């Protein structure tokens, strides 16, 4: 708990807020990137090097790019004509606030009694690799399958209409 944490938390939350509030879709996507980067830095601060870099690689390198590609492919880079918020925005806001209230209450109530590890965990990338192909090899294979299926699925979903029309 120090200045760095507060700074990173502020960056992340500001990025998230901007992503939700900004008018322009591309700005939203870029703000999301800020949030992703802030989260990656938070991971690094939590001594999770591998997860932090994987976060940057996957989210900034792939997901953010996917989002901006989609925005441009759906002509979302022009400003929307109507409002940016849905008609039921108030209900959504109340639900979100309620969820946050419950979560915060739960965190603050329950976290007190938990014993906490403060020493930096001595986990190397080597350990992560061993765990991935050892204990977690089945999930790894399934994720591989899922990613393949998702890639093919995404291609088919995005291509479908044109192919049929031909």
């Amino acid at each position, binding site marked *: 708990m120090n200045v760095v944490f507060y700074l990173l938390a502020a960056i992340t939350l500001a990025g998230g807020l901007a992503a939700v509030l900004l008018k322009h879709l591309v700005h939203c996507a870029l703000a999301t990137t800020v949030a992703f980067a802030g989260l990656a830095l938070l991971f690094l601060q939590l001594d999770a090097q591998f997860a932090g870099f994987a976060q940057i690689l996957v989210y900034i390198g792939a997901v953010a790019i996917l989002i901006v590609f989609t925005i441009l492919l759906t002509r979302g880079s022009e400003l929307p004509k109507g409002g940016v918020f849905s008609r039921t925005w108030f209900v959504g806001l109340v639900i979100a606030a309620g969820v946050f209230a419950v979560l915060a209450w739960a965190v603050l109530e329950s976290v007190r009694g938990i014993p906490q590890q403060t020493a930096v965990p001595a986990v190397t*990338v080597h350990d992560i690799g061993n765990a991935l192909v050892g204990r977690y090899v089945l999930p790894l294979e399934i994720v591989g399958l899922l990613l393949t299926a998702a890639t093919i699925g995404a291609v088919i979903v995005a291509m479908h209409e044109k192919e049929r029309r031909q």
Partner: protein
Amino acid sequence: MATSPFFTDLDQIFIILRDWLVGFLPASWRPAACVVLEVIIIICVFPGLFALTTVFERKGLGRMQNRLGPNRVGPYGLFQPIADGIKALIKEDIVPFSANAVVHFLAPLSLVVAVFMEFAVLPMGRNMVLVDLDAGLLFFFSMSVSTELSVFMAGWSSRNKYSLLGAMRAVAQMISYEVVLLLSSVSVVMIAGSLSLSTIVAAQSSYSGIFPHWYIFTPWGLAGFVMYAIAATAETNRSPFDLPEGESELVAGYHTEYSGFKFALFFLGEYLAMFSISGLGTTLFLGGWSAPLSFLTFIPSWIWFFSKVMLSIFVFIWMRGTLPRLRQDQLMNFAWKFCLPYTLLNLIVTAFWHFMGEGWMRWVVCTAILAAIYVFMGRVEMRSEHFGPRRYRYAE
């Protein structure tokens, strides 16, 4: 190898200098001061190298086309980059009226910062690495993919169709070749058993006889290196993969609307990306800072690293001087239908190599598989229409 203390000192001269400089500070400041000093050195050395490279590139390209190249400013035109730099600095900074000013401003900055970060994990000599991260390779790639977003920001914020087209091409191309780049590096990681770049160099710095154990001198390493080089060229948007800035159709691609200092930053970013990706290739396949022959180890390690990097840069320039630009569909087909399958195959071959154990058998088997598949795939690719005249699928 017994080397004299003089050469050992020369090898470690930067470390010694750094420690001497830092020694003036109180002990508690020293680690931070070390890092600051190293960062400053990286920030000074590579732009300097960039300046030299620009003039050597122009001269080299000229020579390849039987021209002289720049030779006016200073002796042999060596001061050309200074003149260019002054020009870029004092030029008017034009931001298009309808551009998105904030994003337009942030794009070159974020690009250069991300590229500079890549140098942090490169071992540039024995004990000369800024941070020896356990997941160094992953860090490098995570930084190099962040440049894609900067390119997109630049192209989109300019509100210019050429910029946008260039940026979309650049992003599509970089994503496609990023996969190849990563997968070709993974074969090295499989053999070295580490993502830390200094460990990978250390694994290559032994010798059998006088020959080094560089990974390029293995069948899978050679194949991986070729794929890596192709992907690196595409990743840095260099010719023949310079479609994003293909001036014959897109003016200048995503930096069409940039001028003055911001354009200089893009230019710097492009060359720094070249240096960093050459540095990574050197580290992964060419033994990093280790000497090419065992009796040459007395020459300081950093000289080897930088000469290997500059050699790679020369090959970049050589290719630029030789090859014509690809077409967008050829580029994508090449990435997904040739490079990616071949790199995946290379991974399998690497696994064979690892599990077949020492001996000549693995050399024969791996070489045979890789060569046969290369020839076969080459035949198939060249016979099919992928590299032939363009077919329009959707055009009326």
